[in-house]
């Protein structure tokens, strides 16, 4: 995090993400709003430090929060919106992997390992180092029941298969509840008809502490980084003032989505706005032309009188469509240079504006 002192000596920081600031606002400014509350944001966030390998220090996130509901329907709504956002952007083969933040925590608790070994365990799972994981389980003689659950969860790829695992885990009450919660969410997603895009990935941890329930992450093939993710955080908001409110949300990395669109061959459409450059040695006449065009709501720039830059070269570099050469007056016909067709013609300014209007109407 970027942290510094302001002039009063108070410590301030640049937001590394939006969910925590929103949680604060919910308790301090929006507590009387009817719930559930649905919020969205498109914001710049700032990150500093080692954990974020993609060294962009400022980037944009687009996200939503659904606050005040903890049903599987709320989870389903968030995940379904997540997928439809990505599809609406134009991305193909979008896939969402989900897991439950409580599953791993609970399973680790049941192993009775020390804090230090638990974090080693977490690292080995996050890097899918199954061999060392197994030897660690041998070393600390983890019970065969937990080992089996561990292996089954690691190998499970579709939420459907969780049903069988849930059946075997009735002894571990909490674990059983978490699995059933995922199965309920799976049912909602099937009713949204997006079950095919949803997978299960036990090693998914998202590296965020405040998640309490389902967590998820989106990806597309041929792009090695995830596009964004989210999860349920039922205990975060109360930390800012005692108001206990469950919530779920997600954020998409805007730059990552653009990169993904790029890898899928998507080309951003060109701006349809028409831009004009006025070039003249006569300031008075040039200003008359500028005023006339601007009054007609046409975007135009004035090339400075003493500029040595060739106005045609400048227009090409800046994506300007037409260059109008004004002589001593705009009453007489002017030379209009069309950048796209690389041609000049002599015309009256009123006729040109009218032809532009016709062109713009198409």
């Amino acid at each position, binding site marked *: 995090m970027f942290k510094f002192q302001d002039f009063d000596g108070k410590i301030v920081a640049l937001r590394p993400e939006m969910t925590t600031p929103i949680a604060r606002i919910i308790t301090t400014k929006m507590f009387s709003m009817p719930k559930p509350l649905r919020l969205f944001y498109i914001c710049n966030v700032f990150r500093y430090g*080692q954990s974020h390998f993609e060294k962009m220090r400022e980037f944009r996130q687009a996200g939503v929060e659904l606050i005040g509901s903890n049903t599987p329907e709320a989870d389903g709504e968030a995940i379904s919106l997540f997928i439809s956002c990505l599809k609406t952007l134009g991305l193909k083969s979008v896939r969402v992997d989900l897991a439950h933040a409580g599953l791993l925590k609970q399973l680790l608790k049941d192993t009775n390992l020390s804090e230090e070994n638990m974090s080693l365990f977490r690292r080995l799972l996050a890097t*899918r180092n199954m061999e060392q994981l197994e030897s660690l389980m041998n070393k600390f003689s983890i019970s065969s029941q937990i080992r089996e659950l561990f292996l089954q969860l690691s190998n499970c790829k579709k939420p459907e298969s969780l049903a069988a695992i849930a059946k075997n885990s009735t002894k571990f009450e909490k674990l059983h509840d978490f699995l059933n919660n995922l199965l309920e969410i799976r049912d909602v997603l099937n009713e949204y008809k997006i079950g095919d895009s949803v997978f299960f990935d036990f*090693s998914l941890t998202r590296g965020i502490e405040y998640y309490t329930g389902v967590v998820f992450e989106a990806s597309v093939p041929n792009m090695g980084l995830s596009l964004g993710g989210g999860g349920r955080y039922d205990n975060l908001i109360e930390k800012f003032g005692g108001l206990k409110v469950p919530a779920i949300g997600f954020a998409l990395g805007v730059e990552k989505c653009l990169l993904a669109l790029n890898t899928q061959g998507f080309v951003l459409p060109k701006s349809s706005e028409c831009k004009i450059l006025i070039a003249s040695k006569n300031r008075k006449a040039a200003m008359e032309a500028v005023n006339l065009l601007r009054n007609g709501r046409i975007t135009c720039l004035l090339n400075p009188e003493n500029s040595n830059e060739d106005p045609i070269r400048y227009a090409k570099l800046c994506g300007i469509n037409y260059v109008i050469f004004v002589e001593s007056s705009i009453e007489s016909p002017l030379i209009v240079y069309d950048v796209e067709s690389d041609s000049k013609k002599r015309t009256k300014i009123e006729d040109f504006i009218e032809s532009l209007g016709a062109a713009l109407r198409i």
Partner: protein
Amino acid sequence: MSRKIRIAVPSKGRLRDPCIRALENIGLNLRGESRSYIAEVSDPRFEVIYTRTFDVPLCVHYGAVDLGMAGYDLILERQVEVYELLDLGFGKCRLVVAVPEESEIRSIESISVMPRVATEYPNLSRKHFGSLGKQAEILAIRGTAELAPRLGLAEMIVDITETGETLRRNGLRVIDTILESSCRLICNKIAYRVFENEINELVVKLKNKRS
């Protein structure tokens, strides 16, 4: 998926030949000139990309390649988030702190003046000295760190060693081990989802043929 699964292999250095041998042991024979960057493989589902050793973890992290063979030391140094699917068992080495034979320094704890440390591993070095509460000026260099003390560029170096022979020949003495390393098969997290079956098959084969 229509495209081939890309495996990054170091283009030079001590790991290059064992990596190629490991692939050939499981029937992935490399075709193509030794100078080109991409090699066709006898199994048409895969292709091999020769990459600078230091860049293998980076390529895997960003998904420029799906799989890579890289030392554990470099996986940590480049601070990447990748799956470490298998310890390939070869390329064993240690990342050590070494000083000239004649130096008074016996251990990091006994350092009194802030030393200059020449290394190709600036991140791991900074972390190690920091964890021992010692300040050090880390000089990130490329290539032979062994030379730095003799040139007067640095008082000590952090580098990898297999047998200690190169260090001894350069008149250097090991005072501390930062970590033990070996060559790993690493995988991009998204690629693992897309090519899971093929990748798991490869892991099992490599594991069975591991010496």
